[in-house]
């Protein structure tokens, strides 16, 4: 196997592994949205507050996944 192919292989594997981190973000978003929906179902009067906090929480949870995305983008496009 020539060195170029090895580099491509390594980059692909590395980027793929980095994106495993996105799973955590997915789980977090799922939990927070699920909780928010349950809360909205229990007391619909506070929907606005719950929604705001849910979006904040989702943003923070998604940030982790985004770090993974950044790492994998850097592996794919910046490393050479």
């Amino acid at each position, binding site marked *: 196997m020539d060195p170029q192919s090895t580099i491509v292989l390594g980059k692909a594997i590395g980027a793929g592994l980095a994106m495993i981190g996105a799973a955590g973000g997915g789980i977090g978003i799922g939990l927070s949205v699920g909780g928010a929906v349950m809360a909205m179902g229990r007391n619909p009067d506070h929907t606005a507050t719950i929604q705001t906090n849910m*979006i904040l929480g989702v*943003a923070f949870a998604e*940030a982790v996944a*985004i*770090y993974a995305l*950044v790492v994998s*983008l850097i592996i794919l496009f910046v490393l050479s």
Partner: protein
Amino acid sequence: MNSFWNGKRRFVALLMFLAGVFVALRVPPVIPFIQLPGENFPAGFNVPFTDIRLTNTFVGSVIVWILLLLFVVYVSRRRPKDGNEVPTGGFYYLFEVLFEGLMGFVGGIAGGRHFRLIFNMFMTIFLVVLLANWMELIPGVDTIGFIHAHTKEKYDAQTGEYKVITTDGYEIYQGFLGISYVNGQCDWISPADEAAADQAALVAAEMAALNAEQELEVKAAYARYQAEHDDHSEGDQAEAAGGGHGDDHGEAAGESDQVADAYNEPLAAREAEKSARADRGCYTGVGPAPWADDGAEDAQADDKKRDIPLHPDPRSEEAKLVPWVVLPFVRVPSTDLNMTLTLALISFVMIQYIGFKALGIGYLTKFFNFGTLFKSPLGGIDVAVGLLELIGDFAKILSFSFRLLGNIFAGSILLFVMSFLVPILPWPFFILEFFVGVIQALVFALLTAIFMNLATISHHHDDEHDHADAH
């Protein structure tokens, strides 16, 4: 004109569908080439008044700005001049409903002294990002463009120059009216690779011939050994040698055939591979194979592979030497970090600005919270929390920009790949991307509004909130 587009001309949709079927059957799909930075236009296209190379994402950005300005003209013409006037115009109603709904929405989140600023920021970001996101739904964006010799220009930090590197691409074909198009069914194999493959086949053939010869020699030696053991007479030996020689001549034809077969087998395989590609209408290397003629052709091929032209005429013979890709005229601006990062920075700056505006210099205690360091046993924790907030605020830039970029980049690649897999019906994914565009625009704008609102609320609720209200 109105009666033309009033929904009764559904045959327009049918015609477009049929055109899609025709194109899908006639033109082979192009495998997407994915690149994160906006593709540079060919040399000579610069951003006006600068020496920055024009990128297709920047063209998309300019289109978004122009659309927004046209939108401003439209709305300011259509909007009622006072509360008594009844608005006119179909699309305007939609905008007004959206506007009023979002006003209530933001009012529920950040209704307060700074509502106007927060709402204006929210709405501007929303409209800009929404338009930018929805550009990916326009047919032709990301697909229609220059047929571009795919040579990657790489900036060399040491010399300060752009280096030309050839990368993977496709061959071009002359289609209707001499229009060139990229043939996605042929992977581009560079002339150098072709020559290398020819060379490899040649080497393999020689090796095989050598092997076959050695095998024959071994066989012959074994045969001599057998002969020696069978009869020990000198005459026999001489006869055997002579006869062997004579046999050698007799069997030479068969043996050389065997060697030639071994020699020709890899070459034939290579020829079959090339002819298979030629049957698909693909390019099969420069000049005849090296084994077909003398080495002069080989040298010529080597010469050709050395100077691959950067921007050849697509109709010339040189075009065969270059990989080609479609360089779209317009790409979705949200897939460019320049836009998302700028918006994230603006959002970040506005968050800090509104914080200072609302709380004065006391806003800094949110980050550098030394007030309780010596008063409370938990003062150290407060300091650490403040520093974490500082880091978190900078991390917002990253998460804002890459959230938008990641979603829309992935979305446009999804659309591209789905169009490649299912040439006629990627419509469900268009609907999906329609909603993703709205949601991402809303999330970007809403998070900005929420963080701006949070920045106006004092960290210390008891004393400083009253202080802020007194302002």
